[in-house]
């Protein structure tokens, strides 16, 4: 115990090891415990032994097979999101104004006026993620709200207080260009108990006129079989 933190006796620090290994310390306690670990070999050794047990705990969960539907969803999403594009589209970026907006005061003023017009037209622009994000309110049939957030051509549909899909069905996201039929995406989702969900819309939304959501049989459909419950008009 000679190399131990002199401010904490063995009983005190040892009491936190198991809770820390289980991720059950409150954040401030965890931070203090991590600092203590630097000075306490006894706790480090005990933590290593507990960590082995904790790492094995997932194996006590009753085993279930991941469904083929889940596999399809994940692999389709991965296919639609090449690593380079995915990483760059999701990582926080330094906040900056586009060159066309910042180059000259007169141009900037004109741009601000244009943006104001766009806002009045029902589309908001925000920069909370570091990039300009276009926020498109969506029409929802029935209960709930939805909006589509578009950053650098990539869309995220945010829904709140939406009713869950009917039993045995799931919500499917579709994209529609100006002169085409709705095209299915890999985005299938349900909502939480509170009716919320954040769904990444696969692919780039440049040229897309409408993003819509319909309830579909579990596994999704190739063409909509129900009227849309969410419609976000981009054009």
């Amino acid at each position, binding site marked *: 115990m000679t190399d131990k933190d002199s401010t904490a006796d063995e009983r005190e620090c040892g009491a936190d090891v198991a809770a820390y290994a289980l991720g059950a310390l409150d954040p401030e306690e965890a931070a203090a415990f991590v600092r203590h670990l630097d000075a306490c070999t006894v706790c480090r050794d005990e933590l290593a032994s507990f960590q082995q047990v904790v790492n094995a705990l997932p194996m006590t969960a009753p085993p*279930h097979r991941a469904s083929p539907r889940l596999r399809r969803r994940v692999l389709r999403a991965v296919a639609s999101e090449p690593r380079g594009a995915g990483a760059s589209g999701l990582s926080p970026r330094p906040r900056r104004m586009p060159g066309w907006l910042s180059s000259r005061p007169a141009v900037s003023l004109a741009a601000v006026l244009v943006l104001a017009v766009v806002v009045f037209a029902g589309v908001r622009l925000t920069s909370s993620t570091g990039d300009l994000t276009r926020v498109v309110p969506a029409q929802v049939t029935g209960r709930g709200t939805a909006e589509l957030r578009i950053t650098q051509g990539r869309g995220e549909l945010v829904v709140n207080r939406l009713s869950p899909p009917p039993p045995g069905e799931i919500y499917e996201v579709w994209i529609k260009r100006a002169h085409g039929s709705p095209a299915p995406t890999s985005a299938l989702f*349900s909502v939480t108990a509170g009716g919320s969900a954040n769904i990444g819309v696969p692919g780039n939304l440049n040229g897309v006129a409408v993003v819509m959501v319909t309830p579909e049989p579990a596994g999704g459909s190739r063409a909509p079989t129900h009227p849309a419950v969410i419609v976000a008009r981009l054009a």
Partner: protein
Amino acid sequence: MALVRDGDARAFEVVFDRHADAAFSLAYRMCGRRNAAEDLVQEAFLSLWRSGARYDRARGSVRSWVLGVVRNRTIDHFRREAVHTSRDVSDDGVAERIPSPDDTVTEVQRRDDASEIRGALRALPADQRHVIELAYFGGFSHSQIADMLKLPTGTVKGRMRLGLTKMRMELGDTFGSMREVSQ
């Protein structure tokens, strides 16, 4: 994982196939709803795809990494929803149970190890097992558990420690002989 790090979707598919059942089982055990579990596993794997470069072999197996991400995502989900009602899933849940062994030697080994680990958890006194399950699968902090069970926080921590110590002693040989179950 090096291929996944380089953005190889086929390599990612292999990783998914190898760990998806364990990931889904954990998420389903934690949240108790099939749809939510699938959403969480999808989120977790997509985040792994986007952050493949962050996997550090020195810090554990791929499976531990995957399951750690699934657990963190699920706990984030709990916190977002503040839904801390009972999430226990009975063994006859609606999800398809994995059929009996017909797989590789590795899978058989994994099932044997899992059976021993389940046995060690079941063998704990109920009060110790309960606090461990609430913390690990429920994502509750020791102070939340203490509130829930109307116990002093020291008692909750003590039960966690006793339970993990007993499991560690019980599973000493299993851990010693465990092949990389988590690979």
